[in-house]
């Protein structure tokens, strides 16, 4: 058989994404693309109040409207025991309210109709009468005595108290300190603003007794298990399919009331039911990110040596505690807040509160609260530099965990796998021309011009996670890969994760290609269908490469081990005498007499050793021994318009280290995207509420996300410090830039104003906010 040598795109190659031809030609298959015969449409009446008693729901007019079939209320669900559902954090959440609404935009009643328009007309015709109740929107106020209680089923707004570190040891460092700095930092509430809003199609097959849900979920298996436990529908009679997903960013780990109502409606009507959020509905009711009030304090010696860190936090979780966290981590991985710095002691405390706002907190590429942690430490370190009159780069270098101290045990208990912070920073400073920029800044200051340079040297923590500590509702956070090699040498690989744009179809194929020598195009990657994919916990918090990517390598290695047996049989040699060279086995010393992986695959089904099972497939459930700790140094250069307060980001350089890289193109794309998100967070995004709990910013007219026009031209570079415990030395990267960049932007703006005595400006850095400072300092034009 004369076959041309196949092209192999193993790891490290910047191949174009295999999934893109379908996306860029409009052939993606998103939930809203699914159209089933007889499909009905579900739309929601939503609460106009942030907190109110429902005194009456009158659906008569809606039901009389042509095309409207049913109006589902909380009372209807209560009868079926489904008025409430469990959340991911062991709380419970209203599906539809029976008598009290707890935030504006909350689903009050579902209208089921023959088409989308009739459903919307029906929504407009449902009459709901409310009696308003006192509202609390600020989590700090919510925890004060006498605050209105948000939940009808609880008597307090306190959600949890969490702490980490040795409080007394930290207090001691503050006593020993020459300098102490302290700063209040608010990390604003934002919305992930994925392109595709939340939605599902529910189809109940009454003959088979099987419920199929196509839904926008980042974690299909977990949803299936929880749905089975709640509804008592056997788990084999529930199929969750995540088709193509238009961005998740954590917002699609949550389980939304609409999913449940759609399922109930399908079971009741016997017809498929589609529910898709409008953009405004989505913005006003689905999971937010952050809303995190911190007070950070740093103790240091006069020479800049950091001794201890203390952070006190109040966090907002909305009306229900549903954060998409690992269960044992109510404050996520906030305890990474010592960042890249070696210090004796640290203490962090978080108090969670209910407010009359939608539930959420963990979203927007935050790596489970690492965004907040990185922001706090990178900001307070800059404030210390300012106070000591030290260059912020120098101060950082002085305190970095040295490269020879890895694995490094952090003051709050994490074991950092690998790092070389100094190298990343040196590269960044050299590339941006730091010394020249400082000179330019000095000259500009003399002329009254405002220019700033901001640095952020963050440390990430991703890849949840080791099964002994990480679980979601008891489900351990391993992840999985199953590979089947077909007789003719192509393969299908299925995973427990679910890409939402990360490029899994390409990177996973490259991993398998690296391990087995199959060409990338010969490997089909599938995810998201619980009827076919191996069990896994899904994709979020940059965990796919550290977990399922590792599983792909391990499953490949199992296949390679079996392939070796088959090759030995085919070559009539002993296994010990065989040599593996990517894609083939040969007997030591005679490389011309090789059996390719394709030969072996064919033999596995046609001519396998008699003492061996036929077939060539493997499955692996990978339990990571530790988290991975990506890092980097970002440098941002800004100019400020003294007339208007507008900030122009002149340059932004990101030097990232995510260990070994599978596909540089995809990594760069992930970094670009996350830098843009960080930019949005720093400069324009914020969901505000007035004191009545009205959301200000519930659509894209008011809630701004950056466009290509204002987004800076990114400069990127890398250092490579492999993870010592990962099968191929990789770390996650999807969130590095959302974690690392906000502090760089803010540090740059504060740096531009520091000679005026400014030490902090809260995000978002609206022109008017910056202008107010210029005016107060007497430098506004």
């Amino acid at each position, binding site marked *: 058989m004369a076959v041309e040598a196949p092209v192999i795109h193993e790891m490290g190659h910047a191949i174009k994404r295999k999934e893109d031809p379908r996306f860029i030609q409009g052939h993606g298959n998103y939930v809203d693309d699914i159209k089933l015969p007889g499909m009905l449409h579900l739309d929601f009446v939503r609460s106009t109040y942030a907190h109110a008693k429902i005194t009456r729901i009158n659906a008569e007019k809606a039901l009389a409207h042509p095309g409207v079939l049913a109006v589902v209320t909380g009372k209807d669900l209560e009868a079926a025991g489904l008025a409430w559902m469990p959340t991911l954090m062991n709380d419970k959440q209203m599906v539809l309210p029976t008598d009290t609404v707890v935030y504006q935009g909350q689903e009050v009643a579902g209208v089921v109709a023959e088409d989308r328009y009739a459903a919307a*007309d029906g929504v*407009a015709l449902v009459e709901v009468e409310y009696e308003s109740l006192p509202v609390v929107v600020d989590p700090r106020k919510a925890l004060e005595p006498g605050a209105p209680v948000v939940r009808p089923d609880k008597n307090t707004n306190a959600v949890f108290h969490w702490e980490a570190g040795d409080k007394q040891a930290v207090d001691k460092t503050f006593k020993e300190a020459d300098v102490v700095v302290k700063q209040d930092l608010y990390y604003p509430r934002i919305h992930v603003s994925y392109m595709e809003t939340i939605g599902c199609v529910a189809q109940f097959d009454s003959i088979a007794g099987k419920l199929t849900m196509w839904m926008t979920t980042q974690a299909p298996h977990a949803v299936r298990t929880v749905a089975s436990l709640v509804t008592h529908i056997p788990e084999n009679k529930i199929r969750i399919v995540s088709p193509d997903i238009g961005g998740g960013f954590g917002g699609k780990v949550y389980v939304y009331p609409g999913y449940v109502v759609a399922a109930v409606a399908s079971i009741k009507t016997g017809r498929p039911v589609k529910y898709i959020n*409008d*953009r405004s509905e989505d913005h006003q009711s689905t999971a937010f990110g952050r809303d995190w009030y911190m007070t950070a304090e740093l103790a240091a010696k006069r020479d800049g040596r950091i001794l201890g860190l203390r952070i006190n936090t109040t966090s907002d979780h909305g009306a229900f505690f549903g954060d998409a966290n690992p269960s044992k981590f109510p404050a996520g991985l906030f305890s990474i807040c010592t960042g890249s710095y070696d210090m004796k002691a640290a203490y962090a405390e978080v108090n969670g509160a209910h407010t009359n706002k939608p539930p959420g907190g963990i979203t927007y590429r935050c790596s489970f609260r690492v965004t907040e942690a990185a922001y706090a430490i990178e900001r307070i370190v800059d404030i210390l530099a300012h106070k000591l009159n030290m260059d912020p780069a120098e101060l950082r270098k002085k305190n970095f965990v040295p490269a020879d101290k890895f694995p490094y045990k952090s003051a709050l208990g994490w074991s950092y796998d690998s790092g070389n912070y100094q190298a990343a920073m040196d590269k960044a400073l050299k590339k941006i021309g730091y010394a020249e920029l400082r000179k330019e800044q000095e000259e500009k200051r003399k002329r009254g011009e405002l220019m700033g340079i901001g640095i952020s040297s963050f440390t990430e923590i991703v890849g949840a996670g080791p099964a002994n500590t990480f679980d979601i509702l008891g489900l351990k956070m391993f992840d999985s890969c199953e590979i089947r090699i077909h007789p003719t040498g192509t393969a299908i690989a299925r995973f427990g994760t679910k890409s939402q744009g990360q490029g899994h179809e390409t990177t996973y194929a490259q991993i398998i290609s690296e391990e087995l020598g199959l060409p990338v195009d010969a490997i089909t990657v599938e995810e998201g269908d619980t009827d076919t994919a191996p069990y896994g916990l899904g994709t979020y918090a940059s965990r796919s490469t550290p977990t399922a990517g590792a599983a792909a390598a391990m499953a490949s290695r199992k296949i390679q081990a079996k392939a070796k047996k088959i090759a030995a049989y085919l070559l009539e040699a002993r296994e010990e005498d065989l040599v593996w060279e990517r894609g083939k086995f040969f007997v030591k010393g005679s490389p011309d007499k090789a059996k390719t992986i394709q030969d072996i695959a064919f033999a596995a089904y046609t001519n396998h050793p008699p003492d061996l099972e036929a077939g060539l497939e493997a499955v692996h459930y990978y339990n990571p021994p530790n988290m991975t700790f990506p890092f980097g140094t970002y440098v941002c250069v800004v100019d400020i318009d003294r007339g208007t307060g507008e900030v122009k980001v002149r340059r932004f350089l990101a030097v990232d280290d995510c260990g070994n890289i599978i596909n540089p193109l995809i990594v760069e794309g992930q970094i670009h995207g996350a830098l843009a998100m960080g930019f949005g967070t720093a400069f*324009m995004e914020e969901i505000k509420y007035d004191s009545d709990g009205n959301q200000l910013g519930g659509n894209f007219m008011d809630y701004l996300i950056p*466009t290509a026009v204002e987004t800076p031209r990114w400069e990127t570079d890398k250092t490579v410090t492999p993870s010592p415990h990962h099968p191929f030395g990789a770390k996650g990267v999807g969130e590095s830039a959302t974690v690392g960049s906000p502090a760089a932007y803010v540090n740059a703006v504060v740096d531009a104003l520091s000679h005026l005595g400014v030490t902090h400006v809260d995000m978002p850095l609206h022109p008017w906010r910056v202008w107010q400072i210029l005016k107060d300092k007497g430098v506004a034009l």
Partner: protein
Amino acid sequence: MISKESIIASLNNVGPNTLYELSKRLILLIPASFDYVAPRTLDEGVKFLEKQGDDAKVLAGGHSLIPLLRFRLASPKYLVDINRIVGLEYIRESDGYLHIGSLTRYADVEASQLIQSKYQVLSDAAGHIADPLVRNMGTVGGNICHSDPANDLPATMLALGASMVALGSSGERVIPAEQFFVDTFQTALKLTELLKEIRVPVPSAHTGSAYMKLERRVGDFPIVGVAAQVKLNAQGICENVGLGLTAAGPKALKPKGAEASLRGKKPGEKEIREAANLAAQDAQPVSDLRGPAEYKREMIRVLTVRALQRALERARGGT
């Protein structure tokens, strides 16, 4: 059926940048049902309005009306789509006027050599409305008829001293811009009239103009905007000044004191500052997500300085 008046009345209660104010309570994004007519001639359009004006809404570029329909802030019985009327898209100079057909798209205004060379404030403004998608669809007539104080063209027309040509069943009438903009979402146009064209006096020599817009992000409505046109005589003395303020009150504003302060003077830094201070005094901005009122007022001042400087540069022969 909600009448146009009731929509206007409800919108008037909430001031500018308003869709949001009401939309936060009305999260519907699917319009109520309506009938659709698409006249082929102006005559046909006007006749239909004469009959059904109270129940009808004219659809031009749709980039303000469609959002209103989707939020159900407007639920007209008829949409009268004027896009198929031939001969409403034109830019030409004759009889001492620049004539712009009401259906002319921003993209065409932005690209017009004629406008770029003599009516820079208009090409500046048109080029900064929203994004290319909106600019390909949005019409000069629609922008003006909508009378949103946050729209860029009403203030521009005030600065240029434009007039609007309205067409009803009894014929045409010409309405000066100053009288055209009545209030938020309210113009001097009758429900039975169509806006046919906009007329701008052809500027004499030594005239320059500019539009300055401060926005939170490209594609967003302005925080504030300032339109300026300056006519100098051969000695460099200001003969005439036109100013218009965007997002500075319930409708586009014409700061007359500021205009008057420059007339007959040689505009130097001091005179410009003085005019800008007067313009800022005339502004009546409100606090919202785009910034506190105080900031907006100050920005009217800053942008008036910048717009006048730019207009003067152009009047003196720069670009």
